[in-house]
């Protein structure tokens, strides 16, 4: 690793002032799983590393107004094991559980995973399907943007120099809605996905038509993708196996995967169709269960 200035502010204001001062010379570190690995491989050589590990107030998980707000410093393991998330958004707890290993989940943070903007990660896919929002702060202001608009390219997010991810806000599921996350792993259980899909399905009161569906894809493009064309096929339609298969076929035309040791691009495209269909089938079943449970 190349030497760097190390700053460890204790407050958010101090952090934002340092980030403003260093601009694009600074990189934020939280869990370190992404940045230290990249620095060790000389893929990142920041002049200044700003640790937010000691910043107060960024580590809470709280229920707010129809949503769960997860502070940027919450670790993947804390999110996975949070009784609040397990109870209200089990698909999200399950998604965090699918990331790497427990050791990595003890280190990697929710905010860090977003800022790293690696299209192979699990949580952004589910957060996108759940229509979560990312809270971003900079000296003198803040903004919130949908996760679906947060990713720009490989390892590139909408964050400007001086900005910090401070939380992610995840809406709870509406009534008669099911959600799922499926991850195709042909190699090892701690690997990145070959294809990952998160989906939600909301039923109309008749229990047979789809009011709304959301589909997000991971590991098949330069960013996680929201697949709106496939969603549109489902919206308002009567649900059935053939329709879910058609949605899968639509999704495979939207992806642009790379050939790598997790599969060829052609294979990943085919698997996108399969996994979208599986994710929708599972979300649909969950939606029917939710509809029955609420009578």
């Amino acid at each position, binding site marked *: *690793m*190349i*030497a*760097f*200035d*190390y700053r*460890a502010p204790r407050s958010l204001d101090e952090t934002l002032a340092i980030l403003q001062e260093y601009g694009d010379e600074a990189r934020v*570190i939280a869990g*370190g*799983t992404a940045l*230290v*690995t990249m*620095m*060790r*491989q000389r893929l990142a050589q920041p002049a200044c*590393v700003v*640790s937010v*590990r000691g910043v107060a107030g960024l580590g809470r998980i709280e229920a707010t107004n129809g949503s769960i707000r997860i502070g940027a410093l919450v670790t993947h*393991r804390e999110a996975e094991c949070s009784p609040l998330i397990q109870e209200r958004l089990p698909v999200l707890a399950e998604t965090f559980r699918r990331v*790497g*290993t*427990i*050791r*990595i989940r*003890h*280190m990697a943070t929710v905010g860090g995973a977003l800022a790293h903007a690696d299209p192979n990660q699990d949580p952004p896919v589910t957060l996108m399907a759940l229509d979560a929002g990312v809270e971003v702060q900079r000296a003198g202001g803040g903004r919130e943007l949908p996760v679906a608009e947060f990713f720009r390219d490989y390892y590139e997010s909408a964050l400007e120099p001086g900005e910090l991810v401070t939380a992610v806000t995840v809406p709870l599921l509406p009534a008669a809605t099911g959600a799922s996350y499926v991850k195709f792993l042909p190699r090892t*259980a*701690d690997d990145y996905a070959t294809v990952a899909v998160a989906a939600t399905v909301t039923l109309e009161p008749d229990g047979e038509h789809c009011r709304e569906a959301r589909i997000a894809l991971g590991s098949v493009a330069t960013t996680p993708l929201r697949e709106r064309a496939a969603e549109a096929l489902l919206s308002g339609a009567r649900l059935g196996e053939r329709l879910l298969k058609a949605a899968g076929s639509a999704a495979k035309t939207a992806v642009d995967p790379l050939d790598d040791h997790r599969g060829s691009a052609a294979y990943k495209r085919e698997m996108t169709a399969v996994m979208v269909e599986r994710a929708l089938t599972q979300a649909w079943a969950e939606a029917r269960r939710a509809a029955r449970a609420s009578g």
Partner: protein
Amino acid sequence: MIRLTVNGQAHELDVPSYRTLLDCLRYDLGLTGSKEGCGVGVCGACTVLLDGKMISSCIALAVFADGREVTTVEGLAEDERLHPVQQAFMDAGGFQCGICTPGQVVAAKALLDAIPHPSEAEIKEWMLGNLCRCTGYYKIVESIQAAAGQARA
């Protein structure tokens, strides 16, 4: 200057910002039990506990341990008495070449601290990130099951 406690002993160290926790343990403190395998947090040979939670010390900065407590494989035995996990790995043959063993043992200790009587599935999920290239994993799982029994007695 960082202050950290390693295996119950307090240290004050002047470390450069880019020092990994693993290198700090091995080269500044001479605790060479923790190994560097992959160097990117995948293999588990560098597993240590930071405030009781297992982490990859090869991708943690030493400064992360400032004000905190680190446990390495050297800190498991009490006096001359091996930790039940260490004894069980010996009795049940949970290792061959030994390079992954410090990480396996530290991870297994953390498991039994969190879940004293884990199921086989819980053992496999917990130990997923500790790779062994000699034995396969049956003996490792058996060692942990034996240690859990020993801790029960």
